[in-house]
């Protein structure tokens, strides 16, 4: 009995991990056409991804008037005000998935949904994307609310 229970819990763990399996995402002409989850994201959850230090931590690099209540806006990246006027949903999705494929290899901005070509990744983060597919869609939904 005890043995069976252990095996069962092992199977359960494995299925949780595979639920987060990384999808192959293609960036064509600076855009990703389809939602990574098949659905639109949730802008409220996306705002949390944007400011969360352990999530996107986008605020570390991007100023954002919409979050003027938050302290410590970074300034290494462009200010996010009106970003939805500058880019389409599909372009924003591509920027979040892998900005290097949009802006070029020089960019400071990390790829948030990419595990290839990384070097010396800490064990804890090996084989994992910075954001889940859901979080990518959520933060894109949030960016789409930033209009001037």
């Amino acid at each position, binding site marked *: 009995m005890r043995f069976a229970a252990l095996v069962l819990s092992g199977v359960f763990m494995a299925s949780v991990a595979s639920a987060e399996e990384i999808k192959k995402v293609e960036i064509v002409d600076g855009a990703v056409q389809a939602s990574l989850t098949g659905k639109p994201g949730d802008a409220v959850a996306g705002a949390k991804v944007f400011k969360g*230090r352990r999530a996107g*931590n986008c*605020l*570390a*690099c991007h*100023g954002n008037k919409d979050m003027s209540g938050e*302290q*410590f*806006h*970074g*300034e*290494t*990246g*462009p*200010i996010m005000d009106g970003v939805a006027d500058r880019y389409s949903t599909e372009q924003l999705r591509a920027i979040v998935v892998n900005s*290097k494929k949009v802006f070029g290899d*020089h960019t*400071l901005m*990390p*790829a948030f949904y990419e595990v290839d070509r*990384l*070097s*010396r*990744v*800490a*064990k*804890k*983060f090996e084989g*994992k994307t*910075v954001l889940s597919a859901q979080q990518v869609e959520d933060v894109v939904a949030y960016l789409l609310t930033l209009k001037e």
Partner: protein
Amino acid sequence: MMKIFGKVAAIVAGSALVATAAFAEDRKSYPAPKDHPLSEIISGYEFRTPETRALQDDDFENPAYILLDLGAELWSTADGAAGKSCASCHGDAAESMKGIGASFPKWSKERNKAITVEQQINICREEQMQADTWKWTKDPNMLGMTIFVKNQSRGMPIVLDNSPEMETVRKLGEEVYYTRYGQLDMSCANCHEDYYGNYIRADMLSQGQINGFPTYRLKWNGVGSTHRRFKGCMKNIRANPFKPQGEEFTALEAYMMYRAVGLPIETPSVRN
């Protein structure tokens, strides 16, 4: 580098950037030699707040002085089976250790590799004093002695050993400096070359210079070594850091002395 910065600056054109530009004029900088990756060489001191600087400016306020005093005491304390102290062989540190902090890592012919001040200390302890070696990054004895030795060069400009051996070491260090590591896929240069003078979250990025190490860091609430800082920056980008005092970090340190060439030694500095 300036191209990237210029592009971002143009997009941003925000008030924050204008403010830092005004602030930047007050930063003391040193001219970079020909073909250097930086157009001006600036100490981390210049990027810190007046409050943090004040702690470094006043030796009585500088919390690292406790370790400097410990180092001075250890200098003339006999230890190990040979019954010797550093002073037994090196005499007055103000004379014998002058310039060490401004020029190490140096090439060791016997060992056929570059060695840091920390490694030299342990070599002397082991081989000359027959004493136990000290742990690299956090042992107060090691930190104290390293501060004491480097402090004998305070105010002296960093100089380079141009031997072909050290050139080769610096080449490896340069490679480490420009390689992107970790889940966040960044290189040292991404932050410290392309964006110094800009805030990343609550921190104003500096050039990541090493002329003040070992440093008292408010965040650590204590003193830390050069390689502890390297390790910290690698962990922040979710990378698996190299080993303190291993080949890569030693080479990186040697290369970063080139990036800092001409900067006066500040050891022990205070940072946030």
